């Protein structure tokens, strides 16, 4: 049960990390577009 609980938690955190990385990528892209406009 400890193992399965750890696996579940790991999956949850990994999924959250994936979402965060996608959001970060999008924000970086938006930021760069703005920078380009400014330059």
């Amino acid at each position, binding site marked *: 049960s*400890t*193992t399965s609980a*750890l*696996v579940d*938690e*790991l999956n949850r*955190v*990994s999924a*959250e*990390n*994936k979402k*965060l*990385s*996608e*959001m*970060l*990528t*999008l*924000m*970086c*892209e*938006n*930021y*760069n*577009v*703005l*920078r*380009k*406009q*400014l*330059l």
Partner: protein
Amino acid sequence: IEKKEVSDLASADLAKKRLVKDEKVNKLQDELNRAISENKKLTETLARVCESYNALHSYLEALQSRKSPEHDNFQKEHDKFASSSTGLGYGTTEIISDDKATVSTAYFPADKSDTSLSVRDGYQWRKYGQKITKDNPSPRAYFRCSFSPSCPVKKKVQRSAEDPSLFVAHYEGTHNHPGPHVGGSRTVKLDLVQGGLGPVEEKKERGTVQEVLMQQMASSLTNDPKFTAVLAAAISGRLIDQSRT
């Protein structure tokens, strides 16, 4: 003696199993700790990027409202386009003519993970803006024809609110030059091409530099234990590239 030997063997076997299980649990615990640490760093980085973005956005808006009312006018025009009724199918276009400009709307299939908002419509475009607002969290990207300023055509691309698997492109103006793919069925052709490919192949086909970088960034986070270093390198690389161009 025999019973004792059997008992010893059983306990040794049990101890071995316990050891293996402990090792597995330790490994999982380490992996979880690493993921939690990644999560924390990602959250912090995202917060910093959001802060920088908001600051830059405010600054740019203030600058534009003072110097260039053109952008605001274009924004207003396109908000009008977005609110106009469409009801179109895949790859079809509707053209509305008025006194000021020719306005058209086209729909393109979109990968759910695609954040680039670039659609292949047969013409080349230069992206000059992208924004998200609180009341409309779906990102909108603004493009000018690559022949600008001699060609006045502009377009706005946004994921469809009704169907997120579609991109909606609003066009303003008429091209005064032939496109690279001349022909009446440019959007239909696009549908056939995109519909025939699987999600992975489709991404490869779209392989622009930005998308490849995005994929690298996303995959490095899940695969590379030194994700922050890789991520930081990728982001800074992009920033440097952008500032050079």
